[in-house]
C-alpha cells in the first residue's frame, strides 16, 4: 500500500503548476479601482452628453434654474452612481472586504428620501391627488434603454470578478449604470408630476440592478472565457 501523502507531493497539482507556468505570457496589470471609476464615469458622462445632444435638454432647465427636488435628485443619484461603481470595482478584486458592498447604502437612502421629499412637495402643492398612481413608461424605457447598455459596459470592466463574487459586483454595477441613466433622464425629461416620475425612476433603477444581478454573472463568465481563450 502506498503512503497517502506520496501522490500529493508529486501528484497532478504539481503537474498543473508546471503546465500553468509553461509559456507564461505577461499580463497588463488592472488599473486601480479609483482609475477604473474615473474611466467609467467619463464613459457614462459621454453617453449622457450624447443623449442630450440627440434628444435636447429640458426646456425648463434651459429657461429656469433647476428646482430643489431636481437638484437633490441629481446629487443623490450621482452619489449612488459613483459609490456603487467604486464598490463594484473594489469588490471585483479578490482580497477586498465584502463590506465594500455597503458603501452606496447611505446614498441610496438619500435617493429614496429625495423621492419621499418629492411626494411631500406634491401633496403640499396639489393635495392628495398629487399622489395618484400613474404609469410613466417613457421614464422606464429611457432608463432601461440607457442603463442596460451602460450596465454591459461596467460588467465588461469588472469581468475578472466572474470567478470570485459575480452577483454582488454585477448588481452594484447595474445600480451604478442605472443611476447614471436616471441623471440623464432628469436632464432630458421634464418632471411634471414629480413624485410619480421619481418613483418610476426608482422602479427602472431597481429593474436594471436586478437584471445586472441575474444576467451579469453569466455575461461576465462569457467575457472571461473569451479572455482566457485569447491569453491561453
Amino acid at each position, binding site marked *: 500500500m502506498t503512503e*497517502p501523502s506520496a*501522490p*500529493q507531493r508529486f*501528484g*497532478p*497539482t*504539481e503537474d*498543473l*503548476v*508546471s*503546465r*500553468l*507556468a*509553461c*509559456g*507564461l*505570457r*505577461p*499580463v*497588463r*496589470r*488592472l488599473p*486601480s479601482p479609483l482609475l477604473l471609476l474615473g474611466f467609467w464615469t467619463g464613459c457614462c458622462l459621454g453617453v449622457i452628453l450624447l443623449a442630450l445632444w440627440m434628444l435636447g435638454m429640458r426646456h425648463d432647465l434651459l429657461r429656469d434654474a433647476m428646482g430643489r427636488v431636481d437638484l437633490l435628485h441629481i446629487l443623490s443619484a450621482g452619489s449612488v452612481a459613483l459609490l456603487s461603481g467604486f464598490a463594484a470595482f473594489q469588490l*471585483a*478584486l*479578490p*482580497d477586498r472586504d465584502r463590506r465594500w458592498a455597503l458603501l452606496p447604502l447611505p446614498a441610496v437612502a438619500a435617493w429614496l428620501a429625495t423621492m419621499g421629499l418629492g411626494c411631500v412637495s406634491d401633496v403640499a402643492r396639489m393635495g392628495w391627488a398629487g399622489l395618484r398612481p400613474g404609469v410613466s413608461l417613457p421614464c422606464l424605457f429611457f432608463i432601461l434603454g440607457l442603463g442596460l447598455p451602460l450596465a454591459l459596459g461596467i460588467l465588461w470592466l469588472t469581468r*475578472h470578478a466572474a*470567478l*470570485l*463574487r459575480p452577483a454582488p459586483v454585477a448588481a452594484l454595477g447595474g445600480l451604478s449604470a442605472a443611476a447614471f441613466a436616471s441623471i440623464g433622464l432628469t436632464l432630458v425629461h421634464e418632471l411634471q408630476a414629480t413624485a410619480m416620475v421619481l418613483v418610476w425612476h426608482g422602479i427602472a433603477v431597481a429593474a436594471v440592478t436586478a437584471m445586472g444581478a441575474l444576467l451579469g454573472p453569466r455575461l461576465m463568465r*462569457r467575457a*472571461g*472565457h*473569451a*479572455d*482566457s*481563450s485569447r*491569453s*491561453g
Partner: protein
Amino acid sequence: MSLAALSLSGPALRRVSEAEDRPARDARWAGLMQAAQAGNSRAYETLLRECLPLLRAICRQRLREPAEVEDAVQDTLLTLHRVRHTYDPARPFRPWIAAIADRRALDRLRGLARRRGREADLDAAENLGVAGDAEKRLLSSDLRAAVKNLPESQRAALQLTKIEALSLAEASERSRMSIGALKVATHRAVQSLRRKLGGDP
C-alpha cells in the same frame, strides 16, 4: 534564518522559523508575483509551488476529503492564473491568494452539498433483479453517475475530446474554452472518474 539552519531544525523549530520569516516571505512572494505578471515563468512556478502548502491548509479548513482538498487547490490555481492581472504588488500577496483559495474551497463545498442532495437511493434500483449482465449494468450505471456528477466544464471537455474525439482546436471552438483549460479539464475529468470507479490514480 538560513536554509541550512532550516534543514537542520526539527518540524517545531521549522514552524517557528517560518513564522519569524513570514514578512520576508510575503515580500518575496509579492516580488515573485510581480515578476510573473511580467511573464517570468520560473518566478511563477516557484511562487505557486511555495504557495501549495498554504493553499492546502486553507482548503482543508473547509473540506475534509483529501481528494476534494486537492481539487479545490487545483481550482484555486486555475482561478489565480486567470485573474493574475488583478494582483496589485503594492498590497500583500497572502490575503489575495488566500481569498481566492477560500472562495474555491467554499464553492466546492457547496457543490458537494448540492450533489449529495441530488443523490437518490433509487438510482441503482433499475439494476436489481436483472439476470446475467447485472454487474456490467451496475458498472455502466456507476460510470454514468460519475460522469453526470462531474463539473459541467469537465463533462464538456470529456465529451468533446474523448467521446467525440475532436481535435483540441475544434473542441476549444465548440466549448469556448481555451486549449489550456480544455487540457486541464479533460485531465481532471479522467482522474476524477478513475478515483470514483476505483481505478489506479
